[in-house]
């Protein structure tokens, strides 16, 4: 019982972590609340279905094309919609919600509301602590963790990463120091969308692909980001794993109540916020303190 909970929770937590870290990155750098974030995750899963199951492409070629396509899409979305209204929080929230709905409706039009499935990329199982784990689930964990490690390295070891961190700290000063803030925000949006796409690609074989699959991860991602503290990547990472384990615990301990897994996760988030309003790793800025 305990090993299987540990392993399943790690897998789900890893997916939420790659979504939450991307969201947190965009919020931290560009101050954009992207509610369409998991719609890109869903789009990647659908694209994977089309390329691999319908056109019978090899997985590696499909992944390559998809990552390039999603990056271009991210650039377009940023330049067409987000860049002009970046300063108005309410407008950003509404436009990104509308974008998510638009993506959902387009997918509904094309694929109807049928449940689709993608074949696993790797077959076979491994024995871990007496639990049989499909290799696909192991792949999810390894790939998402590798991507997050790459993001961390990028942020800490490159000049562009430094620019991102500087912009996150203080936009005006960064602008004065000669950093092209618009370009930096664009980079952060593209990175987040690629992270979401990677999560969507590796998860697609284990989920049923359907047009409403973005809602649950969206809510869980929010909860993870807020739990960890808005704008803190470390916090989002840890929050995602807390919520992943919560979800798995609810599913395993109360099998009849698995439909309330979202509610329990939200309740935990609110309870933690009552004790620590700034989240686990959040910082309260001087002008924000009450």
């Amino acid at each position: 019982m305990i090993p299987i909970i540990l392993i399943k929770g790690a897998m789900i937590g890893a997916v939420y972590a790659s979504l939450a870290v991307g969201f947190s990155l965009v919020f931290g750098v560009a101050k954009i609340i992207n509610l369409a974030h998991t719609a890109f995750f869903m789009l990647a899963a659908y694209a994977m279905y089309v390329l691999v199951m319908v056109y019978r492409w090899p997985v590696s070629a499909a992944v390559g094309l998809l990552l390039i396509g999603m990056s271009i899409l991210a650039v377009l979305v940023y330049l067409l919609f987000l860049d002009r209204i970046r300063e108005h929080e309410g407008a950003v929230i509404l436009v990104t919600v509308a974008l998510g709905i638009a993506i959902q409706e387009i997918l509904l039009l094309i694929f109807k509301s049928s449940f689709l499935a993608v074949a696993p990329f790797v077959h076979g199982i491994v024995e871990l602590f007496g639990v049989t784990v499909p290799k696909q689930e192991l792949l999810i964990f390894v790939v998402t963790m590798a991507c997050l490690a790459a993001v961390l390295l990028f942020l800490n070891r490159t000049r562009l990463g430094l620019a991102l961190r500087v912009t996150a700290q203080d936009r005006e000063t960064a602008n004065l120091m000669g950093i092209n803030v618009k370009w930096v925000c664009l980079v952060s949006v593209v990175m987040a969308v690629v992270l979401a796409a990677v999560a969507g690609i590796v998860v697609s074989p284990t989920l049923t692909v359907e047009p409403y699959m973005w809602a649950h991860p969206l809510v869980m991602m929010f909860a993870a980001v807020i739990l960890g503290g808005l704008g803190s990547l470390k916090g989002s990472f840890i929050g995602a794993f807390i919520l992943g384990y919560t979800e798995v615990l609810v599913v395993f301990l109360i099998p009849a109540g698995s439909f309330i897994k979202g509610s329990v996760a939200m309740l935990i988030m609110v309870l933690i916020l009552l004790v620590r309003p700034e989240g686990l790793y959040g910082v309260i800025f001087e002008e924000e303190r009450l």
Partner: protein
Amino acid sequence: MRFIRRQFRRIGQEILAIPGRAIAFVFLISMFLVPLATSDPYIMKVLIFMNIFAIYAASWDVLGGFTGQFCMGHGAFFGVAAYTSGILNLKLGLPVWACIPGGAVMSILAGMLIAVPSLRLRGVYFALVSLAFPIILTGILFAFPDATGGEMGLTGIEVVTRNKVSLYYITLAVMIFCVLTMWKLTDARSKIFRLGIVLLAIHEDEVSARCVGVNTIRYKLLAFSISAFFAGVAGGLYVHVLRIAGPSNLDLMWSFNPIIWTAFGGMGTVAGSVVGVFILYPAMELLRFVPHLRMLIYAGVIIAVIMLMPEGIVHWVRDKLEKDCPRCKLVNSAWRRDCRACGVPLRVKMKTDPSPDRKATTLSEEVA
């Protein structure tokens, strides 16, 4: 007699002279006359829902537009009231006119609960946290299927009245009463209530509001309870018109809809949310002719409107039609030449050749 004459004069001076108010006045009168033109049950039903959702959207505006608490879980208030009202009616057999206030009071209690974290969180943080409350409530609903009907919801709730036309007049009267109350309560220029200006101050800068001695916690709680109360009235009415309360009243779109309506009409004006509902809701009904494209078109319209008119329709129209007097700050229609109270010319022609230093001194004097 004198009283009536004075009222007529007030209508002439304070309503018809200001284009925005004149439009609202004509709109109100025509709302009362609609059943004379048609009593088609479908149209009546659409109009009834428009009235109910106007209350709902305006209640969001009090919280989101005026106080700046961008609540993304407003469906929680609506849902609590809808379910409370339904349960009171079905399980306790209370009459409709006891159920709706009961639901609204319960909604105030829910508002107080939701306000607790909001007192410590701000801005975007609160927006994202408030998203959680409808989801938690859905979990509670599913956990007690005996009382709430679980996934099926409550059915067979008593209807307010079977006659569609009288139902329309009832909802219209309630809508006008609620919207006017909210409008008066949040009016920042009001000489009776302080509430409007304080809420705007909290919206602009909460720390400064505290610094000048406003008990922001008390005012935020007040805003939450006003908003929750009116959302609850809308929820109770809705449930007693549709006769069904279901978990769909708590889903994500139900909470986003009032935000979309209000943003479309114009935030921070109660009138804006009414305008938003009265344009977008019938538009959505028309789109039922193309059911596949309905939501897609809706999403497209939202994006287009926010990109083109980020302030909303009401602000846009008001900028075109109205002009404040530079001296006495009275609102005038934009086509007047001079102010209707103090006679100051509204449009000043710039002289072609003012000497530069003199202009500078007068400017600085004005600033001083």
